[in-house]
């Protein structure tokens, strides 16, 4: 059989090709909606290790001086009370600059970044977070001198609180 036409006529083959391209574009547009996101928010679908790698690289985190107060079993994953305390000093030369909070099992593990100043007097912050499933809760504190301190606490969740 001889091909008589090389133009853009609508044969079965070109139709399938163009439909495929259009479908791919539609999917791409749906998967990455042009949302205005806060500067520090995570990239969609990142897991906890990728988030930590992106934020801290290979910097050493010492697992001391930080306490996470959370329930051992959280019945409702939509409301998990969390208190992060540290005995690190809060004076003008040396203070806790930032508290980063993560829940490993969430669709977006990075939950909050809290910037403190010496005017706070004590390095403490309490909030209530959502957790999708049983996982670890992490806190990583950054001091003004650039050191990192962290803590990990496992929390069991009976009913997930993120939906989806």
């Amino acid at each position, binding site marked *: 059989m001889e091909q008589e036409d090389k133009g853009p006529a609508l044969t079965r083959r070109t139709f399938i090709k163009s439909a495929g391209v259009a479908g791919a574009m539609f999917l791409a547009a749906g998967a990455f909606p042009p*949302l*205005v996101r*806060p*500067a*520090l*928010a*995570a990239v969609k679908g990142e897991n906890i290790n990728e988030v930590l790698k992106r934020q801290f690289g290979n910097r050493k985190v010492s697992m001391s001086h930080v306490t996470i107060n959370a329930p051992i079993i959280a019945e409702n994953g*939509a*409301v*998990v009370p969390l*208190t992060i305390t540290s005995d690190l000093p809060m004076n003008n030369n040396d203070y806790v600059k930032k508290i980063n909070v993560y*829940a490993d099992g*969430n*669709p*977006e593990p*990075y*939950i*909050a*970044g*809290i*910037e*403190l*100043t*010496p*005017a*706070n*007097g*004590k390095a*403490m*912050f*309490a*909030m*209530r*977070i*959502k957790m999708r499933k049983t996982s670890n809760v992490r806190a990583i504190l950054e001091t003004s001198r650039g050191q990192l301190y962290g803590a990990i606490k496992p929390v069991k969740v009976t009913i997930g*609180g*993120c*939906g*989806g």
Partner: protein
Amino acid sequence: MVVGRIKIRVPGTIRKGEVIPVMALVSHPMDTGLIKNKAGQIIPAYYINDVDIFYGNERVTHCDWSYGISANPFISFYLKADKTAPLKIVYKDNKGGVYQQSVQITPR
């Protein structure tokens, strides 16, 4: 539900230089953008992503939040009460809403 109703609680009597606990509550749905309603449509993301806490003219604390914070966010933190000044908390959400309230702190 009224969005953006704020309650701030500080101790009744404050001594100068004392480190006081501050508690604040704001009403907000904090929708994640992952949950569907009964008609099967996704409820769009609607959450507070930025919190600024000012003591006088100084910004003492700043929070970047994702939707992982529970609905009606409650926060608690410490503040060194060393001057007579208002404590102002400003919440901003991802749809441009700004909610703020201040309490006067008068240490004796």
